[in-house]
C-alpha cells in the first residue's frame, strides 16, 4: 500500500512524518505546478472551487508515481470541502483509476475515531507507537509553522532578493529529514539561524508597513495558488502575518466540533458586531482576524478566497463595514485556474502604494500634532 494525500502548503512534512513513522509507505505528490492545475481543472466540475481541482491534480500525479491509496480530510458544515473527498473518489473512479480512498472525518470531540480511521491506513500499531509518531509529527508541524513565521519577519530585510525564500527551503528540508524530536529541535534552531543570517542591516527600516493575510485556509496556505502573495509582499518591504498556520488548521480539524462554536474563542468574539453566525469554512475567522489586525494597528488586510467560496463571499460583504469602522484598508483577491500573475501583482502593488501613502499622511499629521 502506497499512501498519498493532497498538498496544502508545507502540510506534507507533517503528514509524511506521521504516516512513515507508523510504518506506511508514502508517496508525496510533486509540488503543485501548472501541470497539476491543468490536469485537475480538466477532470473537475468547473464551478467547484480551486482546492478540489488542485487536489485532483495532486492525486493523479501521485498515482503516476505509484500511489494506490489516498488519504483525505472530510468535514462538516456549510463549506463544500466536507464533500470533496467523496466527489474526488467518484471523479477518479470514473477515470478508471484503481485505488482506495480513506476519508478522515473530523471527530465530534473524540480522538478515538481519528485513530481508528488512521489504523485503516497504516495497519496495526501499539498505542505507544501511535503516541511517539504523533509527537514527532506534531514537533515537525510546530517547527514548520515557526520557520514560516521567521521568514516573514526576515524577508523585507533580506540581503538579496530571494535569499530568505532559499533559506526557508533549506530549513524546511532539515525539518523534513529529521527522524527524532531531538533532531527536529536542532533543525529548527539551525533553520532559524539560516533565516536570520540573510538579514542585511543596511536594509532594515525602523517601522516597515504591516499587512495581515486572512481568508480561506487552502488559498492562504498554498503559495502555488495564491501566486506567492506572502513572498511578493515581503519582497516589497512589507511585514506579513497570516491569520492561519497549518498547526491551527490541524488542531481545529482534529479537536473542534465544527458545528458548535466554542465560546470565548477570540476571532469569534471580535467578529460578533459584524457577523455572529457560523457561515462555514473560515468566514467568521476572516472577519474576526481583520478586526484583530485593525486593533493591532496593522496598515492593511488582504483577504484571499477561491472563486465561488461561499463563506468568504459572506465575509467579503461584511468587510467594508469593518474597514470603515476601524479605518483599516482591506482588499480581496479571488483565485481560480484562470487567475493571472500580472493581475495579482498589479493589485498587490497598488495596495502597498495605498498603504504607504496613507502611512506618510498619518506621519505628516502626527508631526503637525
Amino acid at each position, binding site marked *: 500500500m502506497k499512501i498519498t494525500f493532497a498538498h496544502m502548503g508545507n502540510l506534507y512534512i507533517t503528514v509524511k512524518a506521521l504516516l512513515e513513522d507508523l510504518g506506511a509507505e508514502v508517496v508525496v505528490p510533486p509540488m503543485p505546478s501548472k*501541470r*497539476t492545475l491543468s490536469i485537475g481543472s480538466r477532470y473537475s466540475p468547473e464551478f467547484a472551487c480551486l482546492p478540489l481541482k488542485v487536489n485532483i491534480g495532486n492525486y493523479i500525479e501521485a498515482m503516476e508515481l505509484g500511489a494506490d491509496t489516498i488519504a483525505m480530510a472530510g468535514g462538516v458544515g456549510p463549506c463544500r470541502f466536507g464533500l470533496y473527498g467523496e466527489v474526488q473518489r467518484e471523479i477518479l473512479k470514473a477515470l478508471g483509476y484503481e485505488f482506495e480512498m480513506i476519508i478522515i472525518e473530523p471527530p465530534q470531540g473524540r480522538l478515538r475515531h481519528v485513530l481508528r480511521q488512521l489504523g485503516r491506513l497504516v495497519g496495526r500499531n501499539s498505542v505507544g507507537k501511535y503516541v511517539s509518531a504523533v509527537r514527532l509529527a506534531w514537533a515537525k508541524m510546530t517547527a514548520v509553522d515557526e520557520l514560516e513565521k521567521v521568514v516573514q519577519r526576515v524577508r523585507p530585510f533580506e540581503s538579496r532578493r530571494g535569499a530568505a525564500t532559499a533559506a526557508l527551503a533549506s530549513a524546511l528540508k532539515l525539518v523534513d529529514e529529521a527522524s527524532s524530536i531531538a533532531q527536529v529541535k536542532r533543525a529548527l534552531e539551525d533553520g532559524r539561524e539560516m533565516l536570520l543570517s540573510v538579514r542585511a542591516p543596511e536594509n532594515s527600516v525602523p517601522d516597515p508597513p504591516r499587512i495581515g493575510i486572512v481568508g480561506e485556509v487552502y488559498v492562504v496556505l498554498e503559495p502555488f495558488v495564491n501566486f506567492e502573495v506572502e513572498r511578493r509582499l515581503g519582497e516589497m518591504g512589507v511585514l506579513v502575518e497570516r491569520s492561519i498556520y497549518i498547526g491551527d488548521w490541524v488542531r481545529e480539524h482534529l479537536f473542534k466540533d465544527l458545528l458548535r462554536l466554542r465560546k470565548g474563542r477570540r476571532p469569534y468574539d471580535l467578529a460578533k458586531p459584524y457577523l455572529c453566525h457560523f457561515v462555514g469554512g473560515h468566514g467568521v475567522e476572516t472577519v474576526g482576524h481583520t478586526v484583530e489586525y485593525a486593533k493591532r494597528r496593522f496598515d492593511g488586510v488582504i483577504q484571499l478566497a477561491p472563486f465561488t467560496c461561499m463563506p468568504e463571499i459572506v465575509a467579503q460583504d461584511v468587510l467594508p463595514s469593518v*474597514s470603515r469602522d476601524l479605518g483599516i484598508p482591506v482588499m480581496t483577491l479571488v483565485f481560480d485556474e484562470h487567475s493571472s500573475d500580472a493581475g495579482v501583482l498589479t493589485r498587490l502593488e497598488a495596495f502597498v502604494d*495605498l498603504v504607504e501613502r496613507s502611512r506618510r499622511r498619518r506621519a505628516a499629521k502626527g508631526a503637525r500634532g
Partner: protein
Amino acid sequence: MARKAYLGVDVGSVSTNLVLLNEQGEVLEKLYLRTRGEPIAVIQEGMKMLAPAASGLQIAGVGTTGSGRRLAAVILGADCVKNEITAHAVASARVVPDVRTVIEIGGQDSKIIILRDGAVLDFAMNTVCAAGTGSFLDQQAARLGVPIERFGELALMSTTPVRIAGRCAVFAESDMIHKQQMGHRIEDIVAGLCEALVRNYLNNVGKGKDIQPPVVFQGGVAANAGMRAAFEKALGTPVAVPEHYNVMGAIGAALLAAEEMERRDGPSNFRGFQALDMDYSASSFECKGCPNLCEVVNIKMGHEVIARWGSRCGRWDSF
C-alpha cells in the same frame, strides 16, 4: 537651459498612450495609439511622433504604467514604474483636486478608486469578468454595424431603454440579438446595453465601495456619452469626464516620475529619442526546469539582452 518636461507612457492591452507634461503638470502633447499586440513597435512609433514636440525640451523624468509597464520601462529607460491604479488616482487628483470616486474603464479592465483628501482609500479591479469594458463595446458596436464613435450619441437618442442581461458578455450579446428580433429599436438596445454594463460594473467592481461625489469617469470608454449618462442615472449625481480622459494613466505616470525625480538626485534614466531607433526584439522560451514550464521572455536591444522575466521562481531574472 532647456525647459524641463516629463514623459508618461501607459501601455495597455488595447491602447498605448504617451504624454508630455511641463513642469506645471500641464499636457504639452498627447498620443492615443492602438497597441495592436505590438507594444514595442507602438512605443517606438509613438516616440517618433512625439520627438518634434519634444525638441528644445529636456526630458527630466520618464514614468511608465499599464500592463506593459515593465516592457516600456526597459525600452525607454524609465525612472518610475507604477501600477495603473496608483497612476490613475494621481492623475485624477491633479485634475479634479476634490475627487472622491474615480471610475476607470479601459480596453480590458475596469476599476474603481475611492479617494479622500487626494489619497487612495480603497480600490477594486474587475476580477473574473470583463463585460462592460472597451473591447466588449467595440465588438457589439461592430456587430450592430454602428461605428464605436457614434455608439454613445445613439444611446442618448433612446426614449425607452430595454433591459439587457449584463452579467456575461456572451449572454448580453444573445440577449441583444433576442431584443433585436423582438423588434426593439437599435437606440433603445444600445442604451439598454449601456445601462446593463453600468449595473454590472456597480454590482461587481463597485460592490461595497463608498461611492461619493465628485465622481470622475476616465479611460477610453468615457468617450461614450451613453455610458456616462447611464452612470449619472444610476448614481444620481453628475459624472465629470476630464479633458484628457483617455490618457489619464499616462498623465499619472508622468506626474509620478516628476515626484520621483524630486526625491532623487541625478539625471533621468531616459535612453533618449535616438536610442529608440535601435532594434528591439522580444523572444520567449519555455523553461524546462520544473513542471511549471514558465514562459520566459527575453528583451533584446540589438544583440544584447536588456531584460528578462516570466519565471515563477525568478531563476532567469538575473543575467
